[in-house]
C-alpha cells in the first residue's frame, strides 16, 4: 500500500480505438503520455479491438452488442476509460446503454461503464483539471470539431483550453469548424460523390483560415480531411490534437505525409 496520506493516482484504461491502433499508433503513445503527465496510472487492456460502432451504425445490432460486452469486460475495475476519439467514447458513453435497453443485466453494466468513460480532451480538462501540458509547437492551427464529440459529448472548449497552454501555438477558427467533414464511417465509401462535396467544403473552410495545420480529436475525420487535402495538392498538415499537446509530433509525420528520409 502507498502512504495513506498520499492520493492514489486514478487508474485509467486507455481505449486506443481501432483506427489509432491500426493507422496511427503514435496518437496512442501521445494519449498515454498526456494521461501519465496528468498523474494517471494508465493501463492498456491488450485484448481490446474496436468499440463496435461500424456494426451499430450499419444496423448490425447483434454484433454491436457482442462487441460491447467484450469492451465492458476488458475495462472492468478501472476508475476511468479514456479514448482519443469523441466518436468511440460517444459510442461507449451514449450508445452502449441504448443498445442494451432491453437487457437489464447488461444495461446496468453498460451504464456503469458509461459513467466512467471519457473522450481524452474532456477527461484531461474536466476530470484532471488544469493538467500540465508539455507540448511545444510553433505554428498556426485550426481545429475541426468532430460531430460525435461535439454533439454527443459536448467537446468544444476543452481542446481549446488545453491548446492555449502550448507556447507558440496560434489558433485560427474556421467559420465552419463545427460542420461535418463528410466521413461518416461507411458513408464515405458508400456515397463517395456526396462525401466529396462535403469534405471539399470542409477543406475550403480550412484553407480559408490560412492555418498550416489542422488539428482534431478523431482519426476517422482527420484521415478523411488529410486524404482530401493531399489529393487536392495542399501541403496543409493534419494531426491529432493529442500529438501536439503531448509534444510527440516527432514520432510520426503529419497524416498522409511521407516519413522524412534519414540522412547519411
Amino acid at each position, binding site marked *: 500500500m502507498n502512504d495513506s496520506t498520499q492520493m492514489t493516482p486514478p487508474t485509467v484504461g486507455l481505449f*486506443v480505438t*481501432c483506427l*489509432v*491502433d*491500426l*493507422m*496511427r*499508433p*503514435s496518437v*496512442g*503513445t501521445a494519449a498515454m503520455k498526456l494521461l501519465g503527465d496528468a498523474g494517471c496510472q494508465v493501463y*492498456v487492456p*491488450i485484448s*481490446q479491438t474496436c468499440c*463496435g460502432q*461500424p456494426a451499430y451504425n*450499419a*444496423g*448490425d*445490432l447483434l*454484433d454491436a452488442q*457482442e*462487441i460491447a460486452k*467484450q469492451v465492458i469486460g476488458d475495462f472492468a475495475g478501472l476508475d476511468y476509460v479514456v479514448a482519443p476519439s469523441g466518436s468511440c467514447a460517444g459510442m461507449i458513453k451514449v450508445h452502449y446503454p*441504448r443498445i442494451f435497453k432491453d437487457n437489464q443485466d447488461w444495461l446496468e453494466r453498460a451504464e456503469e461503464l458509461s459513467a466512467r468513460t471519457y473522450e481524452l480532451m474532456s477527461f484531461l480538462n474536466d476530470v484532471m483539471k488544469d493538467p500540465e501540458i508539455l507540448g511545444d509547437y510553433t505554428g498556426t492551427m485550426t481545429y475541426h470539431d468532430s*460531430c460525435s464529440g*461535439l*454533439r*454527443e459529448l459536448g467537446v468544444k472548449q476543452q481542446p481549446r483550453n488545453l491548446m492555449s497552454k502550448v507556447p507558440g501555438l496560434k489558433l485560427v477558427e474556421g467559420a465552419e469548424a463545427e*460542420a*461535418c467533414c*463528410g466521413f*461518416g*464511417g*461507411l*458513408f*464515405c*465509401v*458508400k*456515397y*463517395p*460523390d*456526396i*462525401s*466529396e*462535396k*462535403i*469534405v471539399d467544403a470542409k477543406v475550403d473552410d480550412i484553407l480559408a483560415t490560412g492555418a498550416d495545420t489542422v488539428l482534431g480529436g478523431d482519426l476517422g475525420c482527420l*484521415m*478523411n480531411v488529410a*486524404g*482530401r487535402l*493531399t*489529393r487536392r495538392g495542399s501541403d496543409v498538415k493534419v494531426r491529432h490534437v493529442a500529438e501536439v499537446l503531448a509534444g510527440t509530433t516527432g514520432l*510520426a*509525420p503529419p497524416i*498522409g*505525409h*511521407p*516519413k522524412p528520409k534519414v540522412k547519411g
Partner: protein
Amino acid sequence: MKPTSDVFINNSREALVNDTLQEALAKLAQGFPLKRFNAVSRLAEFDDLRDAARDIKTDVLNNLDSYLEKFEAQVIKQGGKVHWARTADEACKIIVGLCEDAGARTVTKSKSMIGEEIALNESLEDAGIVPVETDLGEYIIQLRKEPPSHIIAPAIHLTIEQVADTFKEAHQDYPADRALTEPRVLLDEARQVLRQRFIDADVGITGANMLVAETGSIVVVTNEGNADLTMTLPKVHIAVASLEKIVPTLEDATTLMRVLARSATGQDMSVYTTLATGPKRDEDQDGPEAFHIVLLDNGRTDMLGGDFHEMLRCIRCGACLNHCPIYKSVGGHAYGWVYSGPMGAVLMPNLLGIGKTGDLPNASTLCGKCEEICPVRIPLPDMLRQWRTRQFDAAVTSSKSHFGLKVWAYMVKRPLLYRFFVSFMLSNLRKFGRKGRFNWLPFAKGWTQVRDFPAPEGQSFIHQYLMSQKRKR
C-alpha cells in the same frame, strides 16, 4: 408523382454536377442557418420553448384519439364538416367529390405538403378541375411541372434566371422583351396573374399548420397572404391536413408558433398567421359558405407507439433540411419524392416502404446537426439508424457490405485472430506505403475515388505496447 427514391444515388450524382442547382443550394446554405441562428440568439428562452413544444406534441400523440374527437365535435359545432381519409386515394376522392359538388372548374390552392403527398393536383386535373397554386414557390414549380425540393421553400432549387424563363414561357400576354431580373418584378408579375385566379376560383384548398382541438380552428401560416385569399374568396374552403397536426389549445398553438418560424426562416413570426374557424356566419361580411376539413392518416397511425412514433412530432419547419450536409449537397429532388432531408429520410420509408427508399437512411453521416436544431427535439439520427437495423435484420443491405461487415465483426470478436490479421495486413501495407499515402487501394475504391488513403505508420499500437512491456521485464 412517381417516387424515384429507389435511384437516389443516380439522382444525387446528377444533382452534384448540376451547376445551377449547386448555385441555388450554396445560397440556401448561407441563408437559412444564419437567419435561424440570429433569431434563436435573440430569444433567451428558446431552448425551454423547444422542450415545451416537444411536450405538447408528446401529449398530443399519447392522446391523439380524444383530441381528434374533440376537434371534430368543435368543427361541427362551428358549422364545418370533418372528413376522415385513411389513404391518399381516399383523401383525393373526398376532395374531388367536394369540388364536383360545388360545381368547381378552377380551384386555388395555398401551399400544402399533404396536397403534395397525396398528389392532389393530378387527381383534380383528372377530374377536369384546374388547380392553381398561389404560393409563389408552388406556382413556379407547378408551371415547371416539378415537385417541391424543400418543404417550406418549394422552388429553392431554382435561380432567378430560371424563374424568369419560366414566366416568359407561361405568361404569353406580357411583352416578350420585358426585363425580369429583379425578384420584386417577378413577384409583381405573379401577383398580377394570380389576382384574377383568386377571384375566379370556385373552391379554395389550403393545408393547415395546426388543428386546434378546443376551438375547431385551423392555423395557417404564410409569408405571402395567399392562404387568406384562398380561404376567404371562394364559396367553399377545404383544408387538408394529417392527423398529427392537432394541438390541444390555442395557447399550445402559440407555443409551437414561437419555435416554428424561428426554426424555419429565422423570422420571429411568419408574416401572416390565420385562424379559420367554421364557414362564414350570418353577421360576417365575407368568408366561405362551406368549411371542410379532410384529415389524412396515410400510414401515420401505424407509426404510433412504434420505433418512429416521435417522428410524428414534426412541425415541418424545414430546419433539418437547411442544416443537413447531405441535403445541402444534393438538394431535395434527389430524395425522389415530396419530402427530403433528415425528416424525409425517416418519414418516406414509413410512407413508401423501406424497399423503395433504402438509400435514404443510409445516406447520412449521422452528424447529429438535425437533432441539435430540431424545434421539437426529434431524435432523427437514432431513427435513421433504426431503419438501418431493420434493413440489416431483413438482410436487404447489399450482400457485399453485409458479408464484409460480418467478416470484420467475426474477427473483432476474436482478439487473437484479429491481432494476427492486423499484423499481416499492416506489414503488407507498409511495403507499399512509402509515400505516406495511397492514391489507389483494392477494395477501397469508394475511399480512393475521392481522397488519398493515409498509410499506416507501422506496427499496431497494441503490438508496440506489448514489445515495450517485454523490454521492461
